[in-house]
């Protein structure tokens, strides 16, 4: 008799959802920094950026919980906390665990911005690129659906959009504050 695949399906769907939400959060952060769309209010974009990161963390929690409940890959709670402790695809799963933990750290740093200082907070925020790279490697190497054309298209689209937004941020001229005219 085959086991009920519900948890396995939810684990795969939530993993893909978490990846898309992480990508969207990174893109929102880049939009906030380089401001290609002048009509968007920075405060609203910043709030959406944080909320997308929170939703991504929720999807990651669901991904981990359903992988624990499902018996397909036999993950232990320790394997979900310690990178490299998983018997299943050790390196890619370890990268995924590391990315999730760094994402929690970066999200918590929003609240500790004043305590740690803006400069340190900015430095920590650079880890977002590493998180995105680790999450992409995790999805490509450990994802069950990666060989499917639609899943591969999601990864390619995410990498392309983040690369384009990062390039825009790097090469676009820096924003200047509007000068106040003397009266």
């Amino acid at each position, binding site marked *: 008799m085959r086991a009920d695949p519900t948890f396995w399906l939810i684990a795969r*769907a939530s993993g893909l959802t978490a990846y898309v939400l992480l990508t969207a959060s990174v893109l929102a952060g880049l939009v906030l920094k380089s401001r290609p769309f002048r009509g968007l209010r920075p405060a609203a974009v910043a709030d*959406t950026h944080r909320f997308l990161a929170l*939703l991504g963390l929720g999807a990651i929690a669901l991904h981990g919980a359903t992988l624990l409940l499902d018996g397909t890959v036999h993950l232990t709670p320790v394997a979900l906390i310690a990178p490299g402790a998983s018997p299943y695809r050790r390196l890619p799963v370890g990268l995924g665990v590391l990315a999730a933990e760094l994402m929690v750290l970066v999200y918590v740093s929003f609240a500790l911005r004043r305590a740690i200082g803006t400069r340190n907070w900015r430095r920590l925020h650079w880890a977002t690129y590493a998180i995105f790279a680790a999450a992409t490697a995790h999805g490509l190497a450990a994802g069950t659906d990666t060989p499917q054309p639609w899943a591969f298209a999601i990864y390619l689209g995410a990498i392309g959009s983040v690369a384009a937004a990062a390039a825009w941020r790097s090469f676009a001229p820096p924003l200047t504050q509007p000068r106040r005219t003397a009266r």
Partner: protein
Amino acid sequence: MTSHHGRLYALAASILLFFVAWAVVAAHPWAAPEAAARDPRLVALAQREQRLRNEAGLVQRVVVHRSQPPDARRRNRPSSRRCSRPRPQRHPRAAASAS
């Protein structure tokens, strides 16, 4: 500043995304038919399954026919059924050529 509209859209989009991903993962489109068509062993297995299904259907019909009481069996015999059934009308062109 909290952007309620932004949060609402993000939440709705992520819930929609999750359920669409679930449906796509569960349905695994593109994968199964292509793989089945490529693997010759699976194609041979499918053909054998179809042949066995046909044979099982024939055997089932014979078993049902033999398990019926004699009267019903006589009534359901192909010759008696042919008599009871109305004769199909001939095509007008075929009738004209016959005459």
